[in-house]
């Protein structure tokens, strides 16, 4: 029994690493630009398709494709902020919500049109292999994904804490006006924030490809997990999003193990409701009023 639980927990942590990566992206944009990116999942999807096509037509391993997907999505992020997001800042909730929401619909259905709804996969040398740690079975592909995801998240944390640009981002997140007074250019800072966030989404996509199929609506699952994780981890809190993402993975895994194979969504909603009912400001938030 203990072995079953342990296995479920390990599986959960591994996929939780991806959830964490996506969640960190969402919370980063929200913390700095104060916008919820409803389209974050679609950028994971784009990362996945990029990796898929590089693998299928050029034989490039998805992990190597990271070097393509991340910069590409970073630039897309810069463009996104420059041409779309910037136009709706300060306009209130409605335009901000529905802009990224419309973007999400556009990207999802655009992909549906262009790529059709077929599931596509990439087989790598390690897609099927696993290591045995005691009684536990650990998929290599998922392990690599987890390690890289954690490394990227740590790198982001480091960046935010140590570099000038990172500190500028945190400053702008806390108080945009004061940050401007201190010479921080919010547009540039926001651009980088969105760029980094989308780069993380792209990374998640590449990391997923060895063991997960890509299809136009694949992003929906991840973004849903990410949203709940961001609320659970307290809005805008990068460390919180990371931890909550891992928790979501474990919870989903335990749910699948003990409740049923299709209980994933149920677990997500249960955690959201629980968070709302018990601690709406999240694990790391103060009391709301």
């Amino acid at each position, binding site marked *: 029994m203990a072995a079953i639980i342990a296995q479920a927990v390990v599986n959960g942590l591994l996929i939780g690493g991806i959830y964490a990566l996506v969640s960190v992206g969402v919370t980063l944009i929200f913390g700095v630009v104060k*916008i*919820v990116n*409803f389209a974050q999942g679609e950028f994971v999807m784009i990362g996945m398709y990029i990796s898929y096509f590089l693998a299928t037509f050029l034989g490039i391993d998805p992990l190597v494709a990271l070097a393509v997907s991340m910069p590409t999505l970073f630039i897309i992020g810069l463009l996104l902020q420059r041409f*779309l997001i910037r*136009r*709706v800042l300060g*306009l*209130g*909730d*409605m*335009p*901000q*919500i*529905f*802009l990224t*929401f*419309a*973007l999400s*619909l*556009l990207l*999802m*259905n*655009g992909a*549906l*049109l262009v790529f059709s709804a077929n599931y596509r996969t990439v087989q790598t040398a390690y897609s099927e292999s696993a290591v045995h740690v005691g009684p536990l079975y650990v998929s290599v592909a998922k392990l690599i994904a987890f390690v890289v995801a954690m490394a990227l998240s740590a790198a982001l944390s480091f960046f935010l804490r140590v570099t000038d640009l990172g500190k500028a981002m945190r400053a702008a997140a806390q108080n945009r006006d004061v940050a401007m007074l201190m010479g921080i250019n919010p547009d540039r800072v926001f651009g980088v924030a969105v760029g980094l966030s989308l780069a993380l989404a792209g990374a998640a996509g590449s990391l997923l490809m060895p063991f997960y199929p890509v299809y136009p609506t694949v992003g929906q699952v991840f973004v849903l997990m990410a*949203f709940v994780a961001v*609320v659970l981890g307290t*809005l805008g809190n990068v460390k919180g999003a990371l931890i909550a993402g891992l928790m979501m993975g474990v919870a989903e895994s335990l749910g699948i193990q003990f409740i049923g194979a299709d209980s994933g*969504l*149920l677990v*997500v*909603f249960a955690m*959201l*409701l629980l968070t*709302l*009912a018990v601690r*709406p400001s999240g694990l790391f938030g103060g009391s*709301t009023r």
Partner: protein
Amino acid sequence: MLVSLALPLVVTNAFAIDILIRVLLFAFIGVAWNLMGGYAKQLSLGHAAYFGLGAYTSTILLVRFGISPWVGILAGGVVAMLASVPIGALCFRLRGPYFAIATIATAQVLMLLFLKFRDFAWGAEGTTIPNLGNAPLMMQFPGKAGYYYLALVLLAIGLVITRLIERSWMGYYLIAVGEDQDAAEAIGVNVPRIKRDIYMISAFLTALAGTFYVQYIYFIDPATAFSFNVSVEAALVSIVGGIGTLWGPVLGTALLEPTSALLQSWLGSGRGGVQLIVYAAILMAVILWRPSGLIGLLTRRADAPEAESAPVNG
């Protein structure tokens, strides 16, 4: 106004009448959403929850107990209204985009529940309602005209309710909450109660539309009843037409529904994908260039919702 009453007598093309009925129905759903999302800026993306609850309530009463949908439609409204209280209590703990996400989650949860519960609600296959032919007392009409007038009445009810609220103290309170919740509370607005009340009204009306829809297409299943597309369209028509205005949702629907119907007939089965792309593109265009809605093109003051001009008009 009078034109709309005479339309069914003039328009005989079934396809055209169907479009008109959909325009009326979705305008009504939009009006219901607008009360909450437009005036009070509580942006729900889960109104399909109430659409579905209304549809299922009346259908269960009809198919299992033989109760007329005229009773069922009201029962559905009440069920939705009651459901909105605990749902609101949870969702209103979040604000802005996270409120929207929470509402999406509730509609999904309901869909999942109805997919699972085969005992009283037929599970994933759904059910058809018996075709009784000409049975006005059971909300079934021989031609399209009957449905047209019913939809027209529903829309009229929605517009009248919106107008009444707009001009009363509640209208002012709703806009205040939408503008600045904390400042509103500082001047005595009972914000939690207003949100709860308007949610109840909005849910009630949306549920009426759900019952109508089942009666119109003679079929229901969880995917249709709690369809995310319904939630999206409810918000979309108001945003495109004119968020927080009386006629906004009507204008938005008049634009979007025929477009979608035409697209569907040209492109056939590609419905879901292309329609949403077009909707998304229109939505993005409106947000980037005219966030207050297209109705601003028709009125002089582009950003002036009705309520605030009420003191001038008396």
